[in-house]
């Protein structure tokens, strides 16, 4: 089969992705400053989380505002398996992912029939229920949370995903995670689902006349998105060493996870990455330098930035660097009922 513009573009995307991966792999090496290294790790992790969300929210068009639930579940499952059954997080994270995916399916199954805003609010509520339940559930630590112990006898280890002497390996864990999320998004974009979801967003009636069955594919998107998010949660838990509902399952996190994707360019391959690269450092820096005493200035800047970018560049920041953006048309409304 002769090469088409589609296959050519996808080949280029893969090359750029690989180059980016290389750059990010060597980026932290010359940096000794702990604060900056931490910033990079968080940015990379959230880029991966945003990309995972993008699969359900961007490509499939379901604006889920409950992803903190899957993130938190992943963190808790991995941590509990470690603290109660001494299972290494390297395996535990997959269990966390599995449960995250399962939760996403459970939420999706009743909620997908809801349209636009009803769906968004239903997901917010589900996330909130999860938060409240975990907060009051003693077996998982409740409001006190769980401390993740550093197993001295093992020391720094990849199996146990614990590094205290040099935290650099966490960067590679996060990078691996983000790369997988990116790759999954890339695969989906070129697959039947990628095409079919865009068709449904443009014109659901025409899509149905072409044998597109929407519901099963939404469930698949939810499962993949939730699973990836759960794995991200597990990695985060190992990195920060302590989890509680207020740090891994709180409501605002459900908005912060999609934010890089939305402002970077929802439903695009590079949007979440661009968005994370801009937003996370900005929010961390404003918080450190301006928000230290709870002054709220950091929030004002952050909030203001969100408003400005959303209004000035609704198709996403990634379009500024030439990323292909969906064409303007009345039908291209991601929240259409």
């Amino acid at each position, binding site marked *: 089969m002769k090469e088409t513009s589609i296959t050519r573009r996808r080949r280029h995307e893969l090359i750029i992705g690989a180059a980016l991966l290389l750059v990010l792999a060597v980026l932290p090496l010359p940096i000794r400053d702990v604060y900056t290294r931490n910033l990079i790790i968080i940015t990379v992790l959230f880029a991966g989380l945003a990309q995972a969300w993008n699969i359900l929210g961007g490509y499939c068009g379901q604006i889920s505002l409950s992803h903190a639930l899957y993130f938190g579940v992943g963190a808790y499952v991995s941590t509990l398996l470690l603290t109660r059954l001494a299972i290494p997080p390297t395996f535990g994270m997959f269990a966390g992912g599995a449960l995250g995916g399962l939760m996403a399916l459970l939420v999706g199954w009743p909620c997908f029939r809801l349209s636009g805003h009803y769906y968004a609010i239903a997901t917010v509520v589900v996330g909130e229920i999860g938060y409240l339940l975990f907060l009051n559930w003693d077996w998982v630590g409740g409001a006190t949370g769980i401390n993740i112990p550093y197993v001295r006898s093992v020391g720094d280890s990849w199996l146990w995903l614990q590094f205290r002497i040099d935290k650099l390996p966490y960067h590679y864990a996060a990078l691996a995670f983000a790369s997988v999320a990116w790759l999954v998004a890339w695969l989906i974009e070129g697959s*039947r689902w990628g095409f079919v979801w865009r068709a449904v967003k*443009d014109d659901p009636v025409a*899509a*149905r006349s072409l044998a597109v069955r929407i519901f099963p594919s939404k469930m698949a998107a939810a499962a993949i998105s939730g699973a990836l998010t759960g794995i991200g949660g597990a990695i985060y838990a190992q990195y920060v060493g302590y989890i509680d509902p207020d740090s891994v399952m709180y409501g605002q996190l459900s908005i912060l996870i999609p934010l890089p994707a939305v402002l970077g360019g929802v439903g695009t391959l590079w949007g979440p990455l661009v968005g994370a690269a801009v937003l996370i450092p900005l929010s961390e820096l404003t918080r450190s330098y301006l928000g230290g005493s709870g002054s709220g200035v950091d929030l004002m800047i952050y909030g203001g930035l969100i408003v400005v970018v959303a209004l000035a560049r609704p198709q996403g920041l990634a379009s500024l660097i030439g990323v292909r953006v969906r064409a303007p048309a009345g039908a291209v409304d991601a929240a259409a009922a």
Partner: protein
Amino acid sequence: MPPLLEVDRVSKSFGGVAANVDISFDVHEGEILGLIGPNGAGKTSLFNSVSGEVTPDAGEIRLAGQRVSGLRPEQCSLLGIARTFQVVRSFDSMTVLENVMVGAYARLSRTRPAMARALETLEFTGLAARADTLAHSLTPAEKRRLEVARALATKPRLLLLDEMLTGLTPVEAQSGVQLIRDVLARGITVIMVEHVMEVLLPLVHRAVVLDLGRVLTIGAPTEVVHNPDVIRAYLGDRYAAA
């Protein structure tokens, strides 16, 4: 051999208004049937019942002996019923090739075969040169052609064309007629709703005339055109040929 499509006493009302009343006719494999009638005669409603957008209130529709009335559009499509829409519904944010690929994905789950089928369909419908153009930038005639290409990519047995030639220039219309002949040559059965009489009548094998929701008459184009009831239905409507 049983007919490919059997419309059996189909009736459908919308909010008290009867769109289709007791409609019956057959379509044989390989033929091209014209569905004509004044505005409001119930032609698009009938299409909607055949392709699954709507379920008839009474009666049944069968494809090769199997009941299809009441099935969802996705299921009808998989069984081999494809259609175009009266008001073109293209996927505006996607290119021509991508649009047709959505159709190809109806029966092929992997991208390489779907892309190959889509490319082949574009060649067949003469849109290959516009493969990478965004659908929303196409001319109206090209958009119509795209809808046909997209429908063809689903490898249908039956193709429903809803006013595909309306509003085209004579040159575009002739081109469209040629496309329909090519589709027929591939063994696909066609039902077409059309207002442009001088284009439709030479093309179809038989015609079904609807008026006020009912079947007025069925027959060869030459018979139908001379039928006094048909003439009255149209002239009573102050209808003038395009």
